[in-house]
């Protein structure tokens, strides 16, 4: 079966005084129905920009320079703005990181959940309200029917995130993009929200792109993981394989720096330095400044993403 979503050689760029820099550089990935693909990386690595590119919501002056994003046979990048608007919130929807800022504070949550139903599905107001209450029940909101008239500020962070998820699910999307859906929440609430998203995937066969920086979350909730660094995918593999058998020095270093992999009280194996900025004119591998095993060619040329074992791709000169 062809994948639900295929991204091929996506370049999302920003103009600078001395030329154009790519926030997302030559990124390819695919998501199948009913599966979860995780995108991991630090802030500035391009993971949110990838998510926004799929929605065609790259903030100005950024633009998609080349590549294709194919959803079920349609190239999203070739669509008119009007046709794209029909896809957003209907076939692809997005859950943002901040449940505080992604809801409109002056609209009742019921109206916000009903909006996509009335716009995309042309439901009359009364039916939309019924469906909204049903959605709130699905996402585990207590006393769902009475909450429709609440405003966002009357809800806690976890409940607001449930509302955002209810909105995203309103039109039964084929693809859900969850951009750090639990970063702003407590661990106990995080566990509830992740379980909720996961159970909805199991029941509806929806594909999920899960953007996160938490390696524990990818271990428990994703099928395939892509690790991003400085705008590129540096490693991708089935999640258990990637975590048990990391191939890229960056992935290895990230795993090694976690407190749970260290002896209590001893110094952690911290990575030195920090990721390169967007405007740093990289000629070679973006990680070479922090890499423990750099080769001479690392500074000159970007290594290709190479299949080291079946299904496991690594972008590193040491692995070629």
């Amino acid at each position, binding site marked *: 079966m062809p994948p639900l979503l295929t991204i091929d050689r996506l370049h999302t760029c920003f103009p600078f005084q001395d030329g154009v820099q790519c926030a997302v550089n030559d990124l390819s990935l695919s998501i199948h129905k009913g599966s979860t693909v995780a995108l991991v990386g630090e802030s500035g690595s391009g993971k949110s920009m990838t998510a926004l590119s799929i929605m065609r919501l790259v903030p100005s002056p950024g633009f998609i320079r080349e590549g294709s994003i194919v959803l079920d046979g349609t190239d999203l990048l070739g669509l008119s703005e009007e046709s794209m608007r029909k896809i957003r919130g209907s076939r692809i929807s997005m859950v943002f990181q901040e449940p505080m800022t992604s809801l409109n504070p002056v609209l009742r949550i019921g109206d916000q959940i009903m909006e996509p139903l009335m716009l995309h599905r042309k439901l009359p107001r009364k039916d939309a309200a019924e469906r909204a209450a049903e959605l709130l029940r699905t996402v585990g909101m207590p006393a769902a029917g009475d909450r429709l008239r609440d405003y966002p500020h009357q809800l806690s962070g976890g409940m607001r995130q449930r509302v955002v998820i209810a909105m995203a699910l309103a039109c039964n999307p084929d693809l859900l993009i969850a951009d750090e859906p639990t970063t702003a929440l407590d661990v106990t609430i995080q*566990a509830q929200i*992740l379980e909720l998203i996961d159970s909805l995937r199991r029941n509806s066969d929806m594909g999920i792109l899960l953007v996160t920086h938490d390696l*524990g979350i990818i271990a428990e909730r994703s099928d395939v993981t892509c690790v991003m660094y400085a705008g590129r995918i540096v490693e991708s593999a089935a999640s258990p394989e990637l975590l048990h058998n990391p191939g890229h020095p960056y992935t290895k270093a990230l795993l090694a720096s976690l*407190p749970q992999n260290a002896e209590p009280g001893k110094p952690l194996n911290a990575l030195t330095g*920090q990721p390169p900025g967007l405007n740093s004119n990289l000629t070679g591998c973006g990680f070479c400044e922090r890499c423990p095993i750099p080769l001479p060619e690392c500074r000159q040329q970007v290594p290709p993403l190479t299949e080291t074992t079946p299904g496991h791709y690594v972008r590193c000169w040491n692995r070629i």
Partner: protein
Amino acid sequence: MKDTTVILSAHNLYKRFTQKRSPTSPSGVLTAVDNVNLELAIGETMGIAGESGCGKTTLGKLMAGLIQPDDGEICFSGENISGLSPDRYKKFRRQTQMIFQDPFSSLNPRMRIGDIISEPLLISQAGSAANRRSTVEALMATVGLRPEFFNRFPHEFSGGQRQRIGIARALATAPAVIVADEPVSALDVSIQAQIINLLLEMKATYNLSLVFISHDLSVLKHVCDRVSIMYLGSIVESAPAQQLFQRCLHPYTEALLAAVPRITNDAGPRPIVLKDDIPSPFAIPSGCRFHTRCRYAREKCIHEVPELELKHSDHRAACHFSEELFLS
């Protein structure tokens, strides 16, 4: 433990906030810190964990002397700080410093880095201007900032570097105690480890005692000697870190531990043991404050408040049934 001399302690500490009536909420009293007892030994790292709104930041601010308790007392080296003369109080303030969570809002954007770090010295009137400059440059070097950054502004730095500036500022007065309120929560994974290492290093170099507030239990497990778990303003469990993570005695601690996603978890996610949100702090449940979310709750829990009592050596828990439960 090598040295059990207590440097900072809290006795029956209370902090309440009153909320005025507004169109959206009735008036009420919120007890952010509810009868908390704590002892921090010299050279010890004490972790405080809990969900947002459980009062851990308020407790941290009380311990650092930034806000005053409504009831109870805080003792520094055995002296009650609320009874100190203004002069002695100033000395105490120099001895406890705080590191804040958000490295973006905790530095004045209009001040130069050098001025930010030397401000505590200026306030405590330590040394001449030239002296202060060399102290600040030495501090910057210790926390891994180049002395050339002296005249730069906070916006020129990344989150990790800003947190280094915050740490240098906290170290400026050569304190005995540092309260670190979620010092790594806002940082990227690869930077987190750098800052944790720096804190551990500074603690060893200056023989600091640390209060480390965090919601990340894996970080606490790594850095702390003791961990106290807070729920709705109260400490529900307190034990040496290794003991707590090996076998906890409070169902809330169990739930917190179970909720942390784990890399080494091949069996997939564990079933969720904690449902719903934390109850409103304006209406704390009767009896055991955790009973509304506890999967082991019985009749007794609804009516009787469990005391935080010694269950076995150095391990305290506030649960009626902790002896009978086998918590993971």
